[in-house]
């Protein structure tokens, strides 16, 4: 069972306290109407599936309840880092 560092609680906690929440740094456009059908399709449905570093979101569901970002290696399953929502991509 992986240990995940919550950047808000600043603690390493077991993964059962957390919920995965998809790829990170996909901001909802401020004006969706300005998106073409193709652009909106990409926003809705296209996600990265890298072999290696993956930027993703987690939520400390059974803890502080905050969503945060993480970099995880999809090969080793090791977390490189976690950081608060709103901070720049790492």
């Amino acid at each position, binding site marked *: *069972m*992986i*240990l995940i560092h919550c950047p808000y609680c600043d603690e390493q906690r*077991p993964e059962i306290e957390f*919920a995965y*929440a998809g790829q990170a740094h996909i*901001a*909802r456009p401020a*004006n*969706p*109407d300005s*998106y073409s*059908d193709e652009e*909106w*399709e990409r926003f*809705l449905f296209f996600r990265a599936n890298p072999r290696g570093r993956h930027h993703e*979101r987690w*939520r400390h*569901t059974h803890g502080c*309840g*905050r*969503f945060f970002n993480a970099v995880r290696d999809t090969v*080793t*399953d090791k977390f490189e880092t976690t950081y608060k*929502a*709103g901070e720049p991509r790492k």
Partner: protein
Amino acid sequence: MSGYRLPAGGRVDRSKPVTFRFDGKTYQGFAGDTLASALLANGVTLFGRSFKYHRPRGVLAAGNEEPNALVSIHRGPGRFTPNLRATNVELHDGLNASSQNRWPSLKTDFGAINDRLGMFFPAGFYNKTFMWPRSFWERLYEPAIRKMAGLGDAPTENDPDTYTATYAHCDLLIVGAGPAGLDAALEASGTGKRVILIDEQDEAGGGALADPALWPWLERSMKALNAAAKVTILTRTTAFGYYHDNFIGAVERLTDHLPENSDGPREKLWRIRAGEVLLAQGAIERPLVFDGNDTPGVMLSSAAKTFANRYGVAVGKSLALMAVHDSGWHDVFALKKAGIAIAAIIDARTDVDGDLKAEAAALGISVHLDHSVIGVSGRHQVNSIEICANNGNARRTIPCDALLMAGGWTPSVHLWSHSKGSLKWRDDLGAYVPDQANENCRSIGACAGDWDFGKGAVFDVLPTLRDQARIKAFVDFQNDVTAKDINLAVREGFRSIEHIKRYTTNGMATDQGKTSNLNGLQIASTALAKAVPDIGLTTFRPPYTPQTFGALAGHAKGALFQATRTTNIDGWAEENGAVFELVAQWRRARYFPQPGEDMHAAVNRECRAVRGGVGIFDASTLGKIEVVGPDAAEFLNRMYTNPWKALEPGRCRYGLLLKEDGFITDDGVSARLAPDRFHLTTTTGGAARVLNMMEDYLQTEWPDLNVWLTSTTEQYAVIALQGPNARKLLEPLVQGIDLSPEAFPHMTVREGLICGVPTRLFRVSFTGELGFEINVPTAYGRALWERLMADGADYGITPYGTEAMHVLRAEKGFIIVGQDTDGTVTPYDAGLDWAVGKKKPDFVGRRSLARPDIVAAGRKQLVGLLTEDPNMVLEEGAQIVADPKQPVPMTMIGHVTSSYWSETLGRSIAIGLVANGHAIMGETIYVPMPDGVIRATVTSMVFYDPEGARLHV
């Protein structure tokens, strides 16, 4: 007792005889014996039949690597465990064991015919032979093969035992309490570290238990460790899996070794998080591959030493050794000194150290260097072996009743591999050893290839005079894989060891190839003319040894498998005969049958009561979210399809929630209590999902909004009072709220008191009747319910359950998200255009409502369905077609999502998702069923009171 028990020695307690049974026959052993050692002491050599060929098999090993001697243990009704290794089963009074995979008996086994036909069972036999026709496979081949092949029987009764579990944390976890593990524990014990030392045997010591010279050291060490404050020693505990971040799963066997073992938990699952892990798992001796190497009496040399030194048992009266490694020589020297006759040492190497030869000479043991065993005689026990010089000369027969194999050693890297540590090949050992760690973990002692067993050579198959294709030289004893099978796989084109493994099944039995993987690799390496590291290594996966489902499930079974949520009113429902159903995790009253009523009659009566008098319904399970803050209205405006900003305090609104893809995900009636405070409701099953979704948008998309979300689902008991008499019943009980239609119209909310208790009183209806939903603090739910029941007697008050609720809402065409929608339904598809704020610039899912496939023609839409025969109730889930005469498979244009008998209307009603449904009102569709085709007309979904006259009273 039989003459196989040595007159002295061993760690068994000769003052404590133990009586046990094997295959119905009674035997005696001693406390401290295993089932294997006690049976060997009684002269038993035949322990089981092999998997595929039903060949007679004895004991190969003395530890958990044992592939042959699998037994079933019977501990009374329901307490049956198959496939236990006899070498791991501790003996106790009354132990009842039986052999497996034989019929009618172990000595006379019908399936042994397979052995005679063995030439017809090569690798891939099943794949090749039973391919066609498919129906034969299901009806004939598979049942026959399953009956003949297989290990043990699956238990047929529920397991009455209990299992427990715990978490543990430590600075240092040591797996294996042999000499290396004990030394490490002793060293750590003085440092203040929290240490856990795990060993799977009944006592610590590992290999030292088979070496009497180490016993004084062992005793001193255990005394010191037992006295150490921060050292926890867990024996009878198997570390079965090594997971991320130094998380180790282990099972402690608590009662199986006790004569009275049905009280208390049987096993305990340990979930251990360790700062550092030291693996001291030791090494496993490798069998040698030659014709007849599976005959009972052929076993690992180290096992014979363990049986003699630890259990005081001779595995034969006259032993021969077939060695390619020095360790076997030392073993037979020890056995000879223990008083057991040694018939010969045969070593395939051309020469060995002079010291070994000198000691053999001194002990009077005849030695045959550069020789190999080429055959074994005896069916249920070895009676002689045939040997021959490796150049083909000097063939001779040596009488003996056991043959020991010393094929070298394989470090136990199982847990290391679970942790994803890398391995490196060592030519000198002919084995893989740990290389780079992936966790904070080290391997020490024999599992790291660090041992004092001496040196040896590596052989794939021993030299033989016989035709390689006709010999039965076993590699994987448990799965009956021979050297020939592996060579065949290579000839047929398999190159990767992962493919060879799956084709031959080498290493795929319950022992995961503990004794067979390396021999398999060597044989494949020779056949492919490639070095072992170039053909890869199969992957070890948890569990290290088989574990019970009981231990893994622990307490999570029966009533504790999943929490059942109950409302404050649940007890009343139970006392009044409710029939319950589970909705998400909630237990809800489905209907309240009166004596003599079936569900149909009860639901009809409940529906009549709501339409004609007043019904009472426990709606406490509705999800509730309190949305508070200066930006609360703005936030809801962005989340829901409807406009919220202009909603006045005191008013309610039906809210429709989409996902960003435009599909309906939840709905519910919500109220504005104050400019900065909303009381949201969600579906019963959707509460947690909706709150998570709202938190996601609030935290990550719109962190600038000043809003707080709080789950209040369990803070309120909610009683729905529905029916024409609802107001009359309620009025006298309420203080501070004017219930008149003018002051308190449909879709409004008021705060006040009911029976002196604070309430949020909603005037809402999911039935189409005059209705109220009374929210009170949860603890008052049942008291209020009972008061309403008492006061409502004059009005014909009737409790109704979820089934009547479903019928009543369907009569009104109210959808249930998740029943009438399935994640592909838009507001337009559902006929809920009116709930979408056309003037809003944005809300979650709005852009998607203009997606090409959502505005395309021909989408499935929710419509009402009225069968031509009013008494015919459609089946929910039934498929709908436009033309029932088309050939099968027909083109399906939709399906029935809800269907009921409507007592109010005196006929059946249904809702369905039908392609282009809104455009085909009045047309006939068809529902083909096994008994015939049902005709129905597409209609509006609102079957009852379409003007809503009954609501606005």
